[in-house]
């Protein structure tokens, strides 16, 4: 944000969060990063938040980075049954 920007709106913040996750998971290859971002969002975002970002993306109002954008698309396809979900639980259960 530049010095004059005010605080983010809720929608801006959602997009910001998706991009931030993508930036932090982008050290891997594009394909792996996209999977990792989609898994992360599936694990931690409530359905309401996912629905909001799908809508923003569909309306072309989401200024998403390429990795974040692909991840949201993958996630939407998964939720709609168009792409395979990862096997088993999303989060790894504790092993003891």
């Amino acid at each position, binding site marked *: 944000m530049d010095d004059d920007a005010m*605080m*983010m709106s809720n929608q801006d913040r959602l997009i910001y969060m998706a991009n931030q996750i993508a930036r932090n998971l*982008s*050290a891997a290859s594009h394909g792996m990063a996209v999977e990792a971002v989609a898994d992360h969002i599936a694990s931690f975002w409530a359905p309401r938040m996912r629905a909001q970002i799908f809508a923003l993306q569909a309306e072309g109002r989401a200024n998403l980075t390429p990795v974040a954008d692909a991840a949201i698309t993958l996630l939407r396809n998964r939720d709609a049954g168009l792409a395979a979900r990862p096997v088993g*639980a999303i*989060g790894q259960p*504790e*092993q003891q």
Partner: protein
Amino acid sequence: MSFSRETDHGTPAVITAGKSVTLTIDGQSVTLPEGTSIMRAASLLGGSIPKLCATDSVESFGSCRLCLVEVEGRIGYPASCTTPVAEGMVVRTQTERLKTLRRGVMELYISDHPLDCLTCAANGDCELQDQAGAVGLRDVRYGYDGATNMGQAKDVSNPYFDFDPSKCIVCSRCVRACNEVQGTFALTIEGMGFESKVSASQGEGFLRSECVSCGACVQACPTASLIEKKVVEIGTPDRAVVTTCAYCGVGCTFRAEMRGEELVRMVPWKDGKANRGHSCVKGRFAWGYARHQDRILNPMIRASVDEPWREVSWDEAIAHVASEFRRIQARYGRNSVGGITSSRCTNEETFLVQKLIRQGFGNNNVDTCARVCHSPTGYGLKTTFGTSAGTQDFDSVMQSDVIMVIGANPTDGHPVFASRMKKRLRQGAKLIVIDPRRIDLVKSPHVEATHHLPLRPGTNVAMLTAMAHVIVTEKLYDEPFIRARCDWDEFEDWAAFVAQPARSPEAIEPLTGVRADDVRAAARLYATGGNGAIYYGLGVTEHSQGSSTVMAIANLAMATGNIGREGVGVNPLRGQNNVQGACDMGSFPHEYSGYRHVSDDATRKLFEDAWGVALDSEPGLRIPNMLDAATEGAFKAIFIQGEDILQSDPNTHHVAAGLAAMECVVVQDLFLNETANYAHVFLPGSTFLEKDGTFTNAERRIQRVRKVMAPLNGYGDWEIVQLVAHAMGLDWTYDHPSQIMDEIAALTPTFAHVSYDALEALGSLQWPANNAAPLGTPTMHLDGFARGKGKFVVTDYVPTDEKTGPRFPLLLTTGRILSHYNVGAQTRRTANAAWHPEDRLEIHPSDAENRGIKDGDWVSLKSRAGETTLRALITDRVAPGVVYTTFHHPETQANVITTDFSDWATNCPEYKVTAVQVGLSNGPSDWQQSYDAQARHSRRIAVVEASE
């Protein structure tokens, strides 16, 4: 438990046992580790040799000569406290000659001591009195007329204890306790011989001295010379109950010493495995809030926050909560409500709140205050090691050779652990401190960091990756360990990444501001200096890359093989007393107790079968998401147990807007906290002294909290949650918190062996405690990581978007101080206010000078989020360009300033980096004034007219 003091064996136990030796004392044979004193040996046999200058919390000193014994074949009468046992030794502790000698010693002491025993506050609890009796002293030949030290002025400056020099026998137990146990070196014996006397920091009173009021000296003092004011006021205790401190994640255990229903003093429990008989000022002394007049004892409701509160019966309040939540869910949907569990409450209470939400509300909208502190620890350590917790017990630090402290200030935040750490450092372990601020550990009496890397706030990942660069490129990593314990391919990917020239200390020097040579030297020391242990705190987690930093730390530990044995490991210093427990108990919206994701079908079925309802398989809303949803009109009611989100969460304006948009805010707390200004229902909570339960400390240690007095508000917090559950139609049947723990154990594999019976028998248990580890797990990942192979994660440095610029040129970072606890709701209501009456802004002399600011001036602190005012403290503890403040006082509202940037993985707020401007000011900001007015207005309680 009825009252007796814990046995004092006179000298400490020998920890690193070498050979055993066998000897005879008064005809009894005993075998003990070499190095044990004769005094301790006799005590372990059930005897007691008279003593004054020895106590088992400090090394013996041999000054009083009361403990003389006879040893066959030796000339003279050695002091039993300083003489170690030897093979075949024959000792006599009671002979006529010894009696005469001891009486003579005692006579000298008593001749210079006031004989006001009957009216002395320590009467019946004084070792001098006891020992005079024990040696059979009946008469003092010297009379009391000669020169004495009696009648000297008392020092009553400390709010919790008095020092009466005329009762001092100059045994120096206090001095040694301050040096050895606490490590503060605040006391000295001034003068020589008869003139010698105890003095706090060159003659200043205790309050203004270096003393941090830990009370170790008071506990060590054998006379009434150092004595708790409460003992003077109330009298000596008549019973004691062992319980656990409710302040910080060290989890000190105490004997709550009572006189009837009144708490006289808290004495650290010697058998407590977390604290080993020590404590800090908060746990020992700052419990007065439990009876503070501000405590709310009756439930209250109101239709709108503009109205004054109306006191109602428990029945009415509970029925109101249930009907409001049901009404709101009927109107706005199942997911329009949620709740927050508390890291201050017990495991059992936390478990019940999340159960109420998942089972009763039918959603996963539950979160906890750990969101704002250690959620990145959970994420980072689970990803790399497989378990969301620290790897060691506190004792482990005594085996460390290199201690690396990152973004933590243990002497203020975790004082009792800091004392242990300082003890180890005085024994020669090396210290590396990575922190923007020159914390006390960097240089304090007899402790000095080998390396202090004062990095710019927000550059942790760059710094740790640069250390990894040195370790990889200089081949200092532990290849056999990595091959055996970690995924080698992942290691190679990571190693290739960190080895890039762009990650080198030289390349990142302009970012961190730390000299590359220092970074290289620190990395080499950590990798090659022997057992390397990392301790970290909120300076790691509360960043936009908090989770990455935790993983970067885990990478360093794995790469150097510093994991899986005593003396090493990765250890988060947890903030609140039960933040570990709150996380363990399933307080996060995506996981059940034991960190199992809600989407895991097998786990969910376990809970569904136990609770008899279908459970949601999707993650719920986190605190910031709940507030966002509230401002969008989709989230309407919240049940908050023991947390003050308005004061503790970032961007106060946004929190206030979220709360104001809800139709039913329920706050369960001791006091009308800041959040309660926006509440419609207030349910009075109980203190840790008033209920049974357990807390889990930073070393995963589960310890009992025991009820020592009846709850003033009528119910323990777990009972209140159960009442709400009943009103919502749930058939809970808990009569005692132990039954809740039984349910937790049945549903949580890592807790399978935890029960109140087990805790009673063992004192405490560190999870995992199950078939694989029936007695618990002091050190984790011994033979393999919980997740199988340790996972190296590439942590790319992504600078925060919170950047300085012309309008906001300084970086604000925040922290806490010893005498206060978080938002200060409790400690501000005790005499601890004597040490920290207000929050101050620390600013470097050059930044202050540029702005014309003098020490103590009122300054405005302004960020993109808001503005507040406070007074300046000019110090070079902070680097130029960095300012620092605490957040203990609501008037300051430091979180008006903090932004809503947060950790990428967990949304833990970025408290540690805010771009700000500082300027002179002449009073409170507009926000402070309007906030104050709103708070006053909101806290009104309607006066009920007495009926005719």
